[in-house]
């Protein structure tokens, strides 16, 4: 094994930060719904890809700037999130069953995407594609930078809202002890619908970021599930910043492994790290 140059190492680490922010952005909504609503929403990945395809359609066919598509995608996916939550609570679906039900929904979304856009690859060519900043010997691609900025803004924004607003306190109280929170006047149903809507909107934003940086194909939905789940579990359920930090740890550890050794070792290193952290972190269950 030869030691990589500083530029190679830094460029790889930067790549890890960017992919980690994508893991974190995808994991944010998933982790919030899991931790606070006790819903393991696999359809979150389906929603993200549906949003990515919508962004692709609006931008490449409609000629709209991909970032402007957020104006349509965010409210639409907020509504979708609310609708799914309403259905799950209407039929009192348990957390484990929510996993199965939303997996089924993901398969339906995948089939729908394949029906409308075919299974072939779709690549969004936008004004951001191929744009990059140069910092010394390092290159910073603009689409990835946008993902990182959005992930950080959303992560810190939601964290602040959860910590410093009455709404956030109510949501945390509901997750902790729903009957007690209800006794204090917290409307469980309305808060759950609102949070599910926010999670849906987060999936929509993640989808736009996916469309900006990645080539789309319907089956890619499942490629993200394992590593994003790992980031959510490592970062902590119900936390907006945890999955982001964990995603970056996973992303950077994979990228640095690729810089030093064979890229095929990357998942072994990152998942070994995940197991170690889960075993050794304080306050583990």
């Amino acid at each position, binding site marked *: 094994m030869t030691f990589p140059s500083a530029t190679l190492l830094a460029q790889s680490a930067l790549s890890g930060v960017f992919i980690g922010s994508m893991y974190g952005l995808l994991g944010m909504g998933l982790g919030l719904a899991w931790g606070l609503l006790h819903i393991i929403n696999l359809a979150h990945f389906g929603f993200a890809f549906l949003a990515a395809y919508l962004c692709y359609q609006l931008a490449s066919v409609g000629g709209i700037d991909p970032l402007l598509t957020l104006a349509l995608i965010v409210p639409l996916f907020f509504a979708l999130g609310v609708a799914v939550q309403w259905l799950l609570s209407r039929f009192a679906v348990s957390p484990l069953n929510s996993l199965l039900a939303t997996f089924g929904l993901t398969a339906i979304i995948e089939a729908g995407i394949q029906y409308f856009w075919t299974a072939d690859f779709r690549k969004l060519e936008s004004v951001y594609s191929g744009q990059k900043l140069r910092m010394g010997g390092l290159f910073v691609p603009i689409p990835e930078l946008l993902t990182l900025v959005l992930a950080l803004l959303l992560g810190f924004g939601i964290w602040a809202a959860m910590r410093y607003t009455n709404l956030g306190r109510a949501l945390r109280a509901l997750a902790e002890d729903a009957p007690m929170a209800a006794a204090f006047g917290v409307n469980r149903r309305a808060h759950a619908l609102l949070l599910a809507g926010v999670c849906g909107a987060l999936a929509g934003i993640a989808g736009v970021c996916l469309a900006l940086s990645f080539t789309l194909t319907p089956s890619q939905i499942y490629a993200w599930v394992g590593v994003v789940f790992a980031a959510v579990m490592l970062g902590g359920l119900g936390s907006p910043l945890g999955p982001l930090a964990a995603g970056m740890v996973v992303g950077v550890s994979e*990228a640095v492994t690729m810089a030093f050794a064979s890229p095929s070792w990357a998942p072994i290193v990152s998942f070994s790290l995940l197991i170690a952290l889960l075993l050794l972190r304080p306050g583990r269950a």
Partner: protein
Amino acid sequence: MNTGHRLIRWLGAALCICALLTTGVHAQSSQAPIKIGSTLALTGPLAATSLVHKVVGEIYVEQLNKRGGLLGRPVEWIVKDDQSKPDLARTLYEQLLTVDKVDLLMGPYATGAILSAMSVAQRYDKILVHHTFGIPSLAKYDKQFPAWSLGPDPANTVPTTVFNALAASPKPPKTIAVVTSKFPSVHFMSLGAREVAKKRGLNEVLFLEWDFGNLDYGPIAARIKDAKPDFLWVGAIGLEGNQLLEALNKIDYAPVEHFYMYPAPGPMSKSPLAKNALSMTVFEEHPPFSNAPGAKEFIDLYHERAAKAGIPDTNVEVQAAASYTAWQILEAAVRATNSLDDAKMAAWLKANRVDTIQGKLRFDGPSNYGDDLMRVKQVQNGRWVTVYPKEYAAPGATLLVQ
């Protein structure tokens, strides 16, 4: 009166002729169709390419029925969705033979599913013609026949063709980087490329492997840029090649000479980053390939049907051509033996050559593989053109170097 009688006679005769003709047509169409069964990955990760095989199969069966079918009977193609899962393909082939009672089999798409179908065909002693099997050494069944003309030792012959093409180029490379997905049918070819490169005295400056499904190509791109090879061999399948090119572009690097084993043909030729990218082919839409009998008609029909099916790239290239070839092989075997007897058809195929749009194919080598017909193609002005060997090159095309 006489005129009236004559008219009645004529009408009677005309009616009799019509009745006879109708009976004849009815007798022909009422014959039970010959059922050909196969699966394709109509959903799942392999669906994009499988759609090409579905369109080609439909075109071929339609053409076959227009020619009167096989053995005077119409042909019906039963195709099931194996969801890109080899284990499901096995079950479905079993079902095709035992429930649907198909007369003949056609292979599914991709090596894993073909291997599954092969085991079922072997159990029922059925002939299996397949279009896209990538690892000849695994094809042990004696009644399987490949249309993917790799030859029996592609890990040696395919890289040799590529390096011969580069050696004949204006700027032969001295250093090489081999980066490869661990996807089985490309991985062994990349390992073969390393061996051939070593024998030819190329200095290997980088060797990397990644797992199929890798999401981050940034660090791989950074290592390629760091190694600065004259020639980059990419053992990529599907979109991996494009993903790597995009990652290289993000760090402002364009490979000097670059080869991709099994790229997604449309996305790669359309990508501005893939300028001068090399790959392998058995057929492209230009002479001499398009001069093969039936090729022109097939190309025109494919353009129309692929567009209708929503396939973004409607050009006939390796996948579509291999698929068409597989049907040609099956038809040739049935016609030559005038039967649906699997043993007779297999024996005939081993002893004879079949005319296809790829050229004349033989099946008398190890694992029923014949010649390696892979040629080198290159992305030039947004389309693939064959550049090596000279006799298969598109008119006026030569291998371009950055």
